[in-house]
């Protein structure tokens, strides 16, 4: 359910500035998802090219953050936003921080891919099972969080919370799964450590998507749900909407 303001500002330029700001953040989100997708592909397919691409493009993600910060700085100085506009601007400031850190994690995964490829011996394809699963889930969460942000959709944001919970379970399963390969063959320890880094990074990316979903709720409801039990937030807001 979208809770977007239904009416534009009397000063149309203000609408345009807020739309541009949000557009910039959404574009940054798309780039981050692309980075994660390519980094995971680099691990699974053993191809160094996408890994190098991810590392090279990481700086562009940082530049997005600088552009968004500058835009927010100007809007606060010139427009003195209030109420939902103020909440949106503050939320976007936090969202870009989360996106930037998610971008860093994608770079970490790309570096894991290069390390794995630089060693002798190719990992067993089965070892990538959870990298693939967690990669898909983290990207799906990030896309859903950005979609929720684009439409100020509380229901979508709550769905991201639910996914975040299952992502933690997936990480636990992934770690057990990867450790089983070390038990079978201790020479795979280095490969497993790199893959553990990768799955942990993917879980963190999912967490950043969850943090972005929190900001969507802040924009829509004026309620800061950080550091609160996600279960309680889901239960309270779903009940309210029902």
């Amino acid at each position, binding site marked *: 359910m979208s809770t977007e303001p239904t*009416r534009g*500002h009397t000063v149309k330029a203000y609408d345009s500035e807020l739309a541009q700001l949000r557009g910039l953040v959404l574009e940054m989100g798309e780039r981050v998802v692309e980075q994660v997708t390519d980094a995971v592909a680099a691990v699974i397919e053993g191809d160094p090219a996408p890994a190098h691409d991810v590392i090279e493009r990481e700086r562009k993600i940082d530049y997005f953050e600088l552009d968004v910060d500058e835009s927010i700085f100007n809007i606060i100085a010139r427009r003195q936003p*209030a*109420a939902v506009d103020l909440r949106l601007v503050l939320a976007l400031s936090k969202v870009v921080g989360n996106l930037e850190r998610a971008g860093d994690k994608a770079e970490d995964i790309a570096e894991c891919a290069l390390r794995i490829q630089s060693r002798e011996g190719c990992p067993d394809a089965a070892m990538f099972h959870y990298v693939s699963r967690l990669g898909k889930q983290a990207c799906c969460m990030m896309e859903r969080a950005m979609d929720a942000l684009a439409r100020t959709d509380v229901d979508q944001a709550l769905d991201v919370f639910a996914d975040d919970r299952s992502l933690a379970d997936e990480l636990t399963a992934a770690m057990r799964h990867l450790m089983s390969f070390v038990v079978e063959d201790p020479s795979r320890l280095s490969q497993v450590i790199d893959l553990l880094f990768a799955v942990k990074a993917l879980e963190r990316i999912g967490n950043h998507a969850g943090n972005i979903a929190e900001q969507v709720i802040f924009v829509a*409801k*004026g*309620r800061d749900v950080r550091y609160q039990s996600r279960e309680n937030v889901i239960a309270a807001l779903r009940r*309210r909407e029902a």
Partner: protein
Amino acid sequence: MNATAETVVTSTGAMSSAALSSRTDVGQTVGDITAKNPRMVCRAVDVYYGEKRAIKSVSLDIGQNEVVAMIGPSGCGKSTFLRCLNRMNDTIPSARVTGSIKLDGREILDKGIDVVPLRAQVGMVFQKPNPFPKSIYENVAYGPRIHGITNSKAELDALVETSLTKAGLWKEVKDRLGEPGTGLSGGQQQRLCIARTIAVSPEVILMDEPCSALDPIATAVIEELIDELRENYAIAIVTHSMQQAARVSQRTAYFHLGDLIEVGETDQIFTNPQHKLTEDYITGRFG
């Protein structure tokens, strides 16, 4: 009419406030109309100009040691409501006020009330500084003299000094008390008017856009003064500047076409208003 029956008093809890984030109905005030230590208690106040109902059953408290800001678009009734609080609307022949307005428990709308002492108890500062065409000293001394507040010249001198000091003007005018008040700058004139109001020992101070004719520096001086005056008085201010309302008040009331739409802590009104009309107004979407 039972005013409380018309008023939706909401919890200030975040979850509760979220429930009302898209209210669009008009006729019920959203938020808590009461003050912790009320000096003025207004209930179901209606104001008619002839047949036109300019204020529609407005209920609101003005509390001791607080500034209540009244905001809203032109013609919303905020100044009309403010003028009810010391019966300034009596001066308009077609105006008729109904409901209840109590000052410290005493009904001020009773016909038997003498409005002269009432207007000393509930002082008013207007949009445009309006010093008397007299000396600075006489501007402040006039009220205490006609109300018989002081018994001697020495007492009057002391009261003039105290009032000018409280209004933050003493240091600037102490050496020229005999000069005309109209010779002061706009900001100084407004502070002189505030000193004049304070001099008759009011309980409540009403301010109707007190800074709209002033530059930003003079405005900041007045705003600082309002904050200091809050320690001793109950203050209600009408302002068109939302930033000013946000800066100086503890509670904010939003008026729209004669209805009091929403009242709340100023922090809440400017970050998370509960009524759509309030949000549209303070975010600049009103139209």
